[in-house]
């Protein structure tokens, strides 16, 4: 798991090794070895990159980050299935940022497994086939009489065996088969098992190196004072007092690029982090905010509430929802609101940069190393090959660490210092600078007839995170207006219309675990429950009636069974929600009970259908984490703004759940024949609506604004 550089890796792997890479071909992936692989490597088209050396050691380049989702185990697990080796012996080399070579490296969109399964199976099968053929040739027997097991080729008839290491030199001279048949699912022995994570020993003894733990010889430490109103320019600063703090070596104006907008700050550089923090406290900076509006939470929400009264700038529709609703006698017309949220990764942002006159090298907790590389090459005016970006372990990411602003800023500090520097964001910086999950307001109008939804109209107001760059239109249609909704609803409802009324505000916004699904689902799945109540139909029955897909039915069946839904009585505090995003469906039942003047969450049952679960316990862990994060975003924390400034500065105000706030969570992973979907995000969106549906069931109180206080229901 050492972050060996690609160059070192290639040097070590050359000579008597079998080296292969996967190239995206016209009709299928092609696997290449030897000189052919070298040519493609030089051309920058290789992706999965596997080598087996003369000792039999297998090395796999992984191009995705380990941010808690188990990438460093599940990626070798996928290779091991067809290669017939022990996943625990596969050495992981963490790729540098290089999109030409690896394709998109973004660890996001719940893509670690679903984005690499096929290429790892193909790479493993092709390598195994080469080794088997090399052994068969050596022994003068047909390859079909040989088989591979645990890093060895065996010929059972003659009981001959040869380790992969003994065969690599011969195998490397063979031509890879254009297409090696892959195992049928039923014969998997590695995929589908809950194999333990290989990074955990280092994560219980303090030895795992996160970005903040990375050190270079002669490295200095820096913190940066940034404009509290996001948009401010440095008018003047006085570093006299800062420079008197022992350990402070330099104070310098720096910039970073936030979605194409230049943002400024003043960096205080010192020999240790504490001295830098003290130097910053002594710093005086005067900001010029230009004419940017000093927004506050109330103003923003008032504007969004107003915006959803009109039909929205853009919409997608089927049938004639407005006519149907005009003719309906009993229209439900309600508004739901979700708060701005900070990502609040436990590891605050940080980055080590070493920029010289003609090169730049970056180490940090980075979700998108290829983006960071491209961005830095542009910002520093360097050719791409002179910029190297290394991923450390990430202490949480959730979307925030996919962005390129803070790595840019660290490079600027290093350039000014003329040496390696680690830029540390304090918790206050991390919480208040954004980008944030945008706050949203949804207006839902609907009517039921004959126990079904007659018409459904949803209008969403909020900032468009897809249109923040200069020149993009912040009022452009937000295509994510329906993200998270199970698509079966679009077939089931005759008249629907989903509109978007974008909000313009100077607050940077960005992906936050499950993105717009995380807020859309609260509105739409709460509203489905309200419509079910209006129709007088049980929430499970109501969803089954509309969503006839066999996979949804199987999910609902399992969820009803594990939660004991059919045995409950109405009013006992059970709530349901079902969502679909990032290739997977998830359903939750939440059970609440009375507790003093509020309610307590007794239990959460979750069922996820993520297709093939490569590591079921890993999927479970992701869903458990999603449930906790969603509950916290529903009942515990929100980011507010006052005078244009993010108002919650640290964990005393932006509260995260304590051990006692987390209820028992029971996760079930459906077995499925379908290809893998995502696991990191799909378990999140349905939690808040299931909770609020449970509260409505228990207390008759409908929660339409998050966050809310469980102690006062």
């Amino acid at each position, binding site marked *: 798991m050492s972050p060996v550089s690609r160059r070192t890796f290639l040097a070590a792997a050359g000579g008597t090794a079998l080296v292969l890479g996967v190239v995206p071909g016209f009709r299928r992936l092609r696997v290449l070895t030897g000189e052919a692989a070298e040519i493609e490597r030089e051309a920058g088209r290789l992706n999965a990159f596997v080598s087996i050396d003369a000792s039999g050691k297998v090395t796999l380049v992984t191009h995705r980050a380990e*941010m*808690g989702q*188990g990438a460093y185990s599940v990626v070798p697990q996928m290779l091991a299935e067809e290669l017939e080796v022990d996943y625990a012996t596969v050495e992981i080399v963490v790729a540098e940022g290089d999109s030409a070579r690896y394709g998109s490296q973004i660890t996001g969109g719940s893509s670690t497994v679903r984005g690499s399964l096929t290429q790892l199976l193909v790479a493993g099968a092709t390598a195994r086939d080469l080794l088997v053929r090399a052994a068969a040739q050596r022994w003068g027997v047909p390859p079909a009489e040989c088989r591979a097991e645990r890093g060895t080729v065996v010929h059972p008839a003659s009981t001959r065996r040869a380790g992969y290491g003994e065969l690599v030199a011969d195998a490397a001279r063979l031509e890879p088969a254009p297409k090696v048949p892959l195992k049928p699912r039923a014969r998997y022995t590695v995929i589908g098992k809950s194999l*333990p*994570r290989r990074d*955990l*020993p*280092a*994560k*219980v*003894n*303090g*030895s*795992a*190196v*996160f970005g*903040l*733990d990375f*050190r270079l010889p002669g490295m200095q*430490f820096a913190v940066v004072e940034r404009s509290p109103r996001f948009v401010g320019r440095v008018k003047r600063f006085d570093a006299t007092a800062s420079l008197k703090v*022992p*350990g402070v070596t330099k104070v310098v104006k720096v910039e970073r690029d936030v979605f194409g907008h230049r943002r400024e700050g003043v960096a205080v550089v010192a020999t*240790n*982090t*504490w*001295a830098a*923090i*003290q130097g910053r406290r002594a710093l005086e900076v005067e900001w010029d905010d230009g004419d940017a509006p000093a927004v506050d939470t109330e103003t923003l929400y008032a504007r969004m509430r107003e915006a959803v009264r009109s039909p929205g700038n853009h919409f997608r529709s089927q049938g004639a929802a407005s006519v149907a609703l005009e003719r309906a006698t009993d229209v439900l017309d309600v508004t739901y609101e979700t708060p701005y949220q900070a990502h*609040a*990764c*436990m*590891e*605050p942002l940080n980055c080590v940069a070493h920029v010289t006159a003609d090169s730049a090298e970056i180490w940090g907790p980075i979700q998108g190393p290829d983006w960071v590389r491209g961005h830095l090459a542009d910002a520093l005016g360097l050719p791409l090959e002179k910029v190297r970006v290394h991923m450390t*372990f*990430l*202490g*949480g*990411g*959730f979307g925030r660490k996919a962005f390129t602003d803070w790595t840019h800023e660290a490079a600027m500090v290093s350039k000014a210092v003329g040496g390696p520097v680690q830029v*540390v964001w*304090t*918790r206050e910086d991390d919480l208040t600078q954004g980008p944030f999950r945008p706050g949203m307001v949804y207006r839902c109008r609907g009517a039921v007839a004959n126990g079904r939804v007659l018409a459904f109209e949803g209008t969403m107001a909020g900032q468009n995170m897809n249109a923040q760059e200069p020149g993009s239109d912040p009022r452009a249609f937000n295509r994510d207006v329906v993200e998270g909704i199970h698509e079966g609803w679009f077939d089931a409802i005759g008249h629907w219309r989903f509109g978007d009324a974008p909000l313009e505000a100077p607050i940077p916004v960005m992906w936050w675990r499950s993105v717009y699904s995380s807020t859309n689902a609260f509105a739409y799945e709460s509203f489905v429950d309200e419509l079910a109540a209006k129709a007088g139909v049980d929430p499970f029955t109501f969803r089954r009636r509309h969503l006839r897909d066999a996979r949804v039915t199987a999910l609902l069946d399992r969820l009803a069974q594990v939660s004991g839904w059919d045995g409950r009585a109405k009013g006992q505090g059970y709530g349901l929600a079902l969502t679909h995003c990032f290739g997977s469906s998830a359903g939750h039942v939440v059970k609440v009970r009375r507790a003093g003047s509020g309610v307590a969450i007794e239990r959460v049952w979750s069922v996820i259908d993520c297709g093939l679960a490569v590591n079921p*316990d890993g999927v479970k*862990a992701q869903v*458990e*984490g999603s*449930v*906790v*994060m969603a509950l916290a975003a529903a009942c515990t924390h929100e980011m507010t703004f006052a005078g244009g400034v993010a108002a919650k500065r*640290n*964990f*005393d105000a932006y509260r*995260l*759940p*304590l*051990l*006692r706030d*987390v209820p*028992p*969570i029971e996760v079930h992973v459906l077995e499925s024949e379908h290809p893998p979907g995502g696991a990191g995000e799909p378990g999140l969106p349905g939690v808040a609506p299931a909770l609020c549906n449970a509260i409505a069931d228990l207390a008759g109180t409908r929660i339409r604004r998050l966050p809310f206080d469980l102690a006062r229901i």
Partner: protein
Amino acid sequence: MPTTLTVNGRRVRVDAAPDTPLLWVLRDALGMTGTKYGCGIAQCGACTVHLDGAPVRSCALPLSAVGNGAVTTIEVLHQDRRGKALQEAWIAHQVPQCGYCQSGFLMAATDLLARTPVPTDADMDAALTNLCRCGTQPRMKAAIREAASRLHDAAGRREP
């Protein structure tokens, strides 16, 4: 200015201002990065270490207050039988996700088991006020229960 302190059983000299929190002394002056920075205001517990056997949040403990106290960090937790049992149970239950907060939780949980060998859920809720963003809390509780039970069994075997 030079100060001498005791970390993991060794006397070490550091050159740091007396107001420097122990956290930054460990991380920047001594290069011991297992103890994490999370908030700087003693809220999240990622920086938890033991001082004379009791858990402290090192981000809010100035070097001048450490004095001759014995500082113990995650790097030697395995030398403590409770710490080792917890580390093993943590792996058995596959507790960590990103892992960043886990050092602090393990230090706090070790102290809990020292004071309350067989903790109830309520004991855990009261004692562990650290923060975890990945949502590993349910697995932590299961792991603490298992470690407590293993230690209890081992103690039973020693003293029949």
